[in-house]
């Protein structure tokens, strides 16, 4: 037990962005209050990968690590599209994922929004139906390849501001 507290003292608080400046802290604060206002404190995201390289998923997973701990702002990645406010889509839309993406989108209850993640910037291909915006109406785009966790947090705030 003593070892635990010693360690804890040495480590300090992890749930903060050690390198982040005041800007990030302000963004998170605003995001939390915006979510409280617009989504009654809980924003549910269903993530779908319709043809990514998997780095975008890795960054979304990173959002749950103790450095970012997105849940404390009221943001949850949910298992079912039926529980989601946002469909967060990464990657291009492949030929083979096209119908599955549309299915997932249909399952979201209204009101619903599509937010896209990253720009793969791959050459045209017969196996790709296009970027998401050619297939679904996109409310907001978060740029980057991949967008870093901080970019995603910033992007979500911009999204909420936009839909108000």
């Amino acid at each position, binding site marked *: 037990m003593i070892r635990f507290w010693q360690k804890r003292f040495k480590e300090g608080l992890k749930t903060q962005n050690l390198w982040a400046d005041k800007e990030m802290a302000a963004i998170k604060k605003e995001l939390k209050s915006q979510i409280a206002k617009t989504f009654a404190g809980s924003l549910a995201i269903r993530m779908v990968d319709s043809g990514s*390289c998997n780095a975008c998923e890795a960054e979304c997973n990173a959002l749950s690590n103790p450095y970012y701990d997105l849940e404390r702002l009221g943001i949850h990645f949910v298992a079912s599209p039926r529980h989601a406010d946002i469909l967060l889509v990464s990657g291009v839309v492949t*030929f083979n994922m096209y119908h599955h993406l549309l299915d997932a989108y249909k399952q979201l209850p209204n009101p619903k929004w599509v937010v896209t993640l990253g720009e793969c910037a791959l050459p045209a291909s017969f196996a790709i139906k296009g970027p998401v915006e050619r297939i679904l109406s996109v409310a907001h785009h978060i740029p980057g390849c991949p967008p870093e966790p901080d970019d995603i947090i910033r992007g979500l705030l911009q999204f909420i501001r936009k839909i108000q």
Partner: protein
Amino acid sequence: MRFIARFAQELSDRFEVIDLYDQKKIVTPVDKNDPILPTLTRTYPAAIWFERKIKDDFGIRFEKSFDTRPLVHHERFPNVHPMRKDFKEKIDFAPFRPYPYERIEGEGIFEVGVGPIHAGIIEPGHFHFSQEGEAILHLEVRHFYKYRGIEKMMEGLEPLQGFGIVQKISGNESIAYQIAYLSLLAQAAGVELDENVRRFNALLLELERLAHHLTDLGFIPNDAGFAPALAFCSMLAEDTRRLLKKICGHRFGFGAVRGEALEIDKSAVRDYLEQTREKLLFFQEWITQIPSLWDRLDNTGILPRHKAIKYSTVGIVAKASGVALDRRQDGWYEQFGFAPLSASKGDVAARFTLRLEEALQSCELISNLLDFSKTDTPLESFADGEYLSFTESSLGEVMLYLRIQEGKIDRFFARDPSFVNWQALHLMMPGNIIADFPLINKSCDLSYAGNDL
């Protein structure tokens, strides 16, 4: 002999099917008017997906193959062969043709389909279980939802342009892919990579391996219901991504491997290593003392050694089953303290422990790789020809093939380690219950993007 890959290419007057083994390469010409060839699947089961893919891509058939279903062409894919040179068109959805899944018939046996979209932040793919109550009788893995047509995309590009695509084949193996591609280009340019460049690249590759293993060291216990491990290890993984960003400007190393060794902040790397090693040792001690966790990991998802060999598996999956295969065993890595690691039980616990050991070994390798200075190896003109390269990514052996014709890419083929390992996943299922599937799957942690191309 270990089977590595079987793939095809089209020349002006014929097709060629290339069979790659660890000791030899066999090239068989195939008549364009009647493209048919004997199957390899009777000896090498891992050839199944390769042959089904060749059939979809080129229309080459395989005699006596016991599985001729389409692979990359899903239910609405039109009947075209996109890898043929005369294929230039755009395709449209064809009428839905149902895919016949592997079936086990019998009283009370039912099927469970999972995916392509999964309940979490995971890549898409389909798992089709035949169940007898809780017990898994059979699993069919069905992928290629993310099939982006990478191979065709590369054709016609200048060799150097290929980097931009290759680095996006599989994000968490990006550095490995770039290193493999750089090696192809160095061969084509007829140059030796500078020793400093090799060290810099190897250092990035070990950081990539650490980021990947650390993530898994958290996710595996998490799938067995032990969430604190995920919180702890995901922090270490985040530290690794941040260090990568600091030394090469990108958290996944996109664009970092181009034949240059960059000036890096070595003291930042040393600090990182010291902390990570200390935390990993703490983690090792902590995690081994949680009996309920090992109760889930031990004896779950066993891949016996003879099957690991028969199915041509690579990477952690092979190593944990006692097959000490590692492309870093090349006479160069050893001077930095590399020695191939392996385990014998082939269960989830073995794959988990091995990742931990590899992560610790990567720390040691990095500290020994730090001795290099800024330099670059210029790559300019590339000779026509056919080139092969192998790199040990965090998932296992990445194999790349490049054919340059008149200065342009004529054929590019990539075999992700996952392409063979996915085919062995079903062997780990019998005797386990469906609730253990996520755990077993995570312990192998395979790439969908790299597999689907």
